[in-house]
């Protein structure tokens, strides 16, 4: 290496000397060891709280609290001690800092080392890409009945209170209040709403029972004096959110509407975990899909429902087919024949089946569930804006590896040729 090269390297390291403690290899090893512990603990916990629970508690957090399993040796004593485990965001964030610091302070800024730097840059991109995916990826579902079109997605997790003005025959106006704003005691207003909404109670899961006629409701639904909560005499009990894969979380909201002349009444709204259209199966609770509220000559409907996203296109289900392994009930193939109806009167026919999703407008529609008897299909819809990052990162790492290999190869060949005896 020439003296100028050394000088440049020294300058670069000098400029970032304050990052030196973060660039420690020991820190890298500690973080990687902790990552292994995190993966081990989360895998154990997945059995107890399900994939979503483990993701939320250990990977999508800074610190997770773990209790030593009761069934392990000494569990009866150790189980009660809460053990903090560094979470995915903390370890991932620190790993990124560690790599970036090393990148800036330790590595030599020479052509010889470009390969190494590209490899590290690729790994940083992978980690950052994962962080962005975690933060921005959305998973939804779309259920379509045969012969019908649907133009919205419903999130698997999270609810919203939709207040819909259906008076105008040409278009409906939806005022959607996200779950995050539904805090007890909160008074909510919006220019499109002719009334204020006061949140009495809200929860992501509950047990509900139809109380005997004439009996009084106590607790959360005590104040309910309008709608299905009143007519079906419903009593509810708050429950912890269930993270297991077959969880059925019924979200609930008790809300009061008020306007200048006073209270319009208090309603109970329940969200069905599989979509509010399922309420129609129950005669008494059917109105949970749309509880009519009449105010100032307009008809509004209230519905606590899985968070919706409306699309600028619709998907029509033409037909479905499912095949099973012979003599079993194990599905072999689910297949949905659909037509995508776009805004500009363009259509696109597609066959969606296992491992062959439909991709459109940044979203991927995977075949998820199907009910041949009831003639409907359900797609799992994924939107991941950073889906290209892992591919780009792998390309960068590959170029880095190739560069490093070729550099050494050329150097080796040059060295060999210079050593070979002259005139041999």
């Amino acid at each position, binding site marked *: 290496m020439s003296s100028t090269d050394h000088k440049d390297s020294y300058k670069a390291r000098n400029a970032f000397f304050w990052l030196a403690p973060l660039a420690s290899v020991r820190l890298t090893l500690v973080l990687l060891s902790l990552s292994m512990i995190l993966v081990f603990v989360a895998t154990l916990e997945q059995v107890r709280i399900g994939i979503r629970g483990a993701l939320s508690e250990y990977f999508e957090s800074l610190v997770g609290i773990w209790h030593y399993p009761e069934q392990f040796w000494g569990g009866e004593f150790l189980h009660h001690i809460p053990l903090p485990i560094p979470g995915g965001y903390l370890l991932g964030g620190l790993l990124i800092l560690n790599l970036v610091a090393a990148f800036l302070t330790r590595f030599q800024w020479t052509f010889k080392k470009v390969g190494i730097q590209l490899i590290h*840059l690729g790994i940083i991109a992978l980690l950052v890409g994962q962080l962005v995916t975690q933060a921005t990826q959305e998973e939804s579902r779309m259920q379509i009945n045969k012969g019908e079109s649907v133009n919205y997605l419903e999130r698997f997790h999270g609810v919203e209170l939709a207040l819909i003005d259906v008076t105008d025959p040409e278009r409906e106006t939806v*005022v959607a209040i996200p779950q995050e704003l539904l805090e007890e005691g909160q008074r909510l207003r919006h220019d499109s709403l002719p009334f204020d909404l006061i949140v009495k109670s809200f929860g992501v899961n509950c047990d509900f029972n139809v109380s005997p006629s004439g009996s009084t409701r106590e607790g959360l639904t005590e104040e309910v004096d*309008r709608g299905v909560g009143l007519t079906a005499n419903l009593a509810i009990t708050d429950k912890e959110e269930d993270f297991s894969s077959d969880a059925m979380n019924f979200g609930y909201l008790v809300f009061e509407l008020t306007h200048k002349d006073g209270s319009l009444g208090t309603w109970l709204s329940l969200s069905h975990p599989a979509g509010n259209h399922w309420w129609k199966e129950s005669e008494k609770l059917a109105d949970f899909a749309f509880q009519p509220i009449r105010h100032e000559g307009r008809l509004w409907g209230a519905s606590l429902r899985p968070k919706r996203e409306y699309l600028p296109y619709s998907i029509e289900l033409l037909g479905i087919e499912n095949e099973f392994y012979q003599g079993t009930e194990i599905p072999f193939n689910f297949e949905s024949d659909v037509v995508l109806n776009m805004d500009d009167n363009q259509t696109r026919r597609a066959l969606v089946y296992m491992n062959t999703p439909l991709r459109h407008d940044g979203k991927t529609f995977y075949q998820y569930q199907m009910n041949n008897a009831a003639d409907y299909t359900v797609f799992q819809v994924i939107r991941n804006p950073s889906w290209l990052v892992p591919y780009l990162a792998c390309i960068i790492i590959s170029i880095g590896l190739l560069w490093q290999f070729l550099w050494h190869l050329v150097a080796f060949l040059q060295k060999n040729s210079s050593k070979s005896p002259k005139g041999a």
Partner: protein
Amino acid sequence: MILFRFSIFAQGLRVALTALILSCTPSCSENHAIEAYPIEPEYEGPVVAWDLPENWAENPDLSGPMAGSFHIKTEEGPKGRIGVMPFRESVSILEVANMFAREIGYGILTERSLAPLLERKTLGDRVFEWVRMEERGGTGTGRSILLALFRQDSETWLFPFIAEKELVETELENFSAFLESTVLRPGKATIQARPPEPAPSPPPSPAELEGVPSWDVPSHWVTGKSSSMRLASHKVYDEEGNEIDFSITSFPGDVGGLLANVNRWLGQIGLPPTDQENLPNFVSRVEVAGLPAQLVEASSEDQALYAAILFKDDRSWFFKMTGSASLAAKEKEGFLHLLDSVSFPKP
């Protein structure tokens, strides 16, 4: 060896990474705000909108086939009932009139007997079939039923107005203005034509009616349907949507005795059962139709019960009022007045 100055590259990289992390931050914490947006029509039910007269208010217990339900605000409390019922199919005015006719003593109407009650009324650009029936006989308070039927394409919209005769008279103008103001949009979902309430039970036979007492009902109590079980049935509502139910029933024998009946009623308003020793906490003496009877009073946090039990000629007579505690307390005086007014026919 070619030399390259990497320091500029390193600075650039640092800036780029900082920008990437910062740009990620807002998307990590989504902006949670109330959103309003238009969508293509999805709602398939009927849409009914109206201008409500100032002295009218909506009933909270909208259910069954009703698209709207209202009462009239009076100084004595809410009175009368006005409804909006959409029928998916075309129904005849005779079918509709017969849903209500028996309730007020008309028996089964025929084309011929309906003709004098029927007229055509034009309100704005709409033509309504208009049927008015006045209560006949019974112990009622002179109720009047006004039925307005409007046909639009294959849809039929019924607006029943049930109230005391005088109230129907005074509110006729408001009722007409209300009908004229309504926006009626049929729903896509099928609505089966069915009576608003179960068909009334056959009236008690003359033998059963023998020895039935008479009584005075407070004028603002809304008369409900009597049946073979209920000799009288009334509802009272207030502005806040509270409701109480009043009934008069009669059964042979002592129906399990005083303690059993009291405990059954306590259970209905969410109170634990009592025993013989504590029974006097709920029961006091009262006189009904000049005879000694028991007055039962109990209230839970929001429900109350006032009942009188009279044992006469091997029969038990129950006069029972139950419902919202606040409203029941206000109506207690009316209830005691009703007990005072009970009178049995002389043999």
